[in-house]
């Protein structure tokens, strides 16, 4: 559906995208993850035909984006980081305008508009002027304009940017509702967003895809290692006993929490149940055993530090081969 081949983008003397090869299949929901300045927005703008690559090719449904941008845009819905709104228009009027720009006739708009207002939770403000809407509602109008013409592909640039926690949950639900109907590519620098909404993750670092795969595939590249915080009651003696047991199971100490004295340990995530069992069997009162960071966060930190991506362990590769 979307395929980029050896795409480079240079602004003046700065290369922001380097040799970008990505492939997105129909119906996928793909998250583009990267720290600020990694090249996420530039990538999305090239896919939306707002920018041309300095080199390489972008094809959407087999159509070259440089040669036939109008054709490609007809297949796309795009939400930029700031929604492109006309403040003096009402929500309904704006959506009708967006639909007509994309070639929708009056009959189709009449059918589609109530659906979009319902999908994006905008029925109550349909007649309201956009200038009077809150940030969360403006973001919804931005999504509504991107989906009004039922595009095959939806590109969302930081859709939860600036939203409060309640609005983030609502937006997440909205994106989930859209998943079946569109191929979605969304960018964010918020990990939980990707974890909860996307099928596949592309991690961008310094203009390159540094890692990609499902959350499970990426976790397996970490070798299943992660941080865990263990809190046992009974003072220093109990903590020392817990640490000795943990080290015996292959965990290594990474310090202790200043107030509670809880131990921060690093080790195989699969060993957490065994650790819990050992602590309890040793007569220690286990108050907490909490993974400190998700595997995805670890991968993201690795990538952000510019560390080379860890190869998937042989067992994981074998498992994949068997299942395929």
């Amino acid at each position, binding site marked *: 559906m979307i395929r980029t081949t050896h795409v480079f983008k240079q602004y003046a003397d700065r290369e922001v995208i380097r040799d970008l090869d990505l492939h997105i299949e129909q119906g996928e929901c793909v998250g583009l993850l990267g720290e600020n300045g990694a090249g996420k927005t530039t990538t999305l703008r090239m896919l939306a035909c*707002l920018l041309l690559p300095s080199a390489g090719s972008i094809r959407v449904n087999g159509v070259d984006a440089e040669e036939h941008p109008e054709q490609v*845009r007809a297949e796309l819905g795009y939400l930029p980081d700031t929604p492109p709104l006309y403040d003096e*228009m009402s929500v309904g009027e704006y959506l009708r305008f967006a639909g*007509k720009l994309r*070639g929708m006739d009056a009959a189709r708009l009449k059918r589609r508009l109530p659906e979009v207002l319902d999908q994006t939770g905008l029925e109550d403000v349909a007649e309201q002027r956009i200038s009077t809407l809150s940030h969360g509602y403006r973001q919804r109008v931005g999504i509504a304009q991107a989906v009004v013409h*039922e595009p095959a592909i939806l590109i969302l640039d930081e859709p939860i940017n600036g939203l409060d926690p309640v609005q983030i949950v609502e937006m997440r639900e909205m994106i989930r509702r859209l998943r079946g109907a569109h191929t979605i590519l969304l960018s964010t620098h918020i990990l939980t967003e990707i974890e909860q909404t996307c099928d596949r993750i592309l991690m961008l670092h310094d203009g390159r895809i540094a890692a990609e795969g499902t959350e499970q595939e990426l976790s397996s590249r970490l070798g299943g290692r992660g941080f865990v915080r263990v809190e046992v009651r009974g003072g220093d003696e109990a903590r020392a006993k817990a640490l000795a047991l943990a080290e015996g199971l292959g965990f290594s100490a990474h310090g202790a929490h200043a107030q509670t004295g809880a131990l921060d340990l690093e080790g195989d995530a699969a060993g957490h149940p065994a650790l819990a069992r050992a602590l309890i069997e040793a007569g220690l009162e286990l108050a907490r055993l909490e993974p400190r960071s998700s595997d995805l966060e670890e991968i993201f930190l690795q990538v952000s530090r510019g560390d080379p991506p860890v190869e998937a362990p042989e067992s994981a590769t074998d498992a994949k081969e068997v299942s395929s």
Partner: protein
Amino acid sequence: MSAATALHVSPWRSCLQVYLRDLKSYFRTPSGYLIWAVSLLLDGLLFNSVAIGEGRRLSTDVLQIYLFNAAFVVEAAAVVLSMRLLAEERATGAQLLLFTSPLGEAQIVLGRFFAAFSLLALITLSSLYLPALIFVHGKVSFGHIAAGYLGMLLVASSILSVGMFVSALSPRPFVAVLATAALVGSMELCYFVGRITDGSAASFVAGLAPVWQHYQSFRRGLLDLGDLAFFLTLTYLGLLASMRVLAGARRR
């Protein structure tokens, strides 16, 4: 997949949508009314104080002086209007709705240009009551008034297209209006520079002044093909350059 069967998009139908939206937007915000009111106020003041004046004048002279002043008012209104053409939406980010829709640079530029031109034509034609007073009370021909107003519409289109080009290059509306005013002002000044320039360059330099040089025939009620060609060429070049700037922005 339930997503769209690809829609057939007629670019010129989309262009019409851009035109209609822009035209409506002038009347939904104070800016359109403000430009209209100030233009009519200036036309009235200049008609009363400069064209009619205190001494006795032939009605043809009154009409000529009025048309000449009104052409400058149209020029100033075009400069102010041009800032909204592209720079304003670039500043707010709203332009991305158009740029991610399946329409080309030509449709965006032409839709916006004709919306601004329609407003300016409405403003210009609404001042017709002033020459109508001369027509009723004095001796001027209908053709003289028609030529004068045709010239004003040509001034409007050419300055708007120059303004659109500057607006396409400007990051902010305020910068666009200042830069357009400076450019158009410099072009008008060329008339005076031409008068003190020796040799064959003199007519070329003076020929860059839209109103001072090329509106003279229209104010006299004449239709000069050279002047007509000047305004149409300037309009065409301004629009073409605007399209190129928008297309070039994708490459930057």
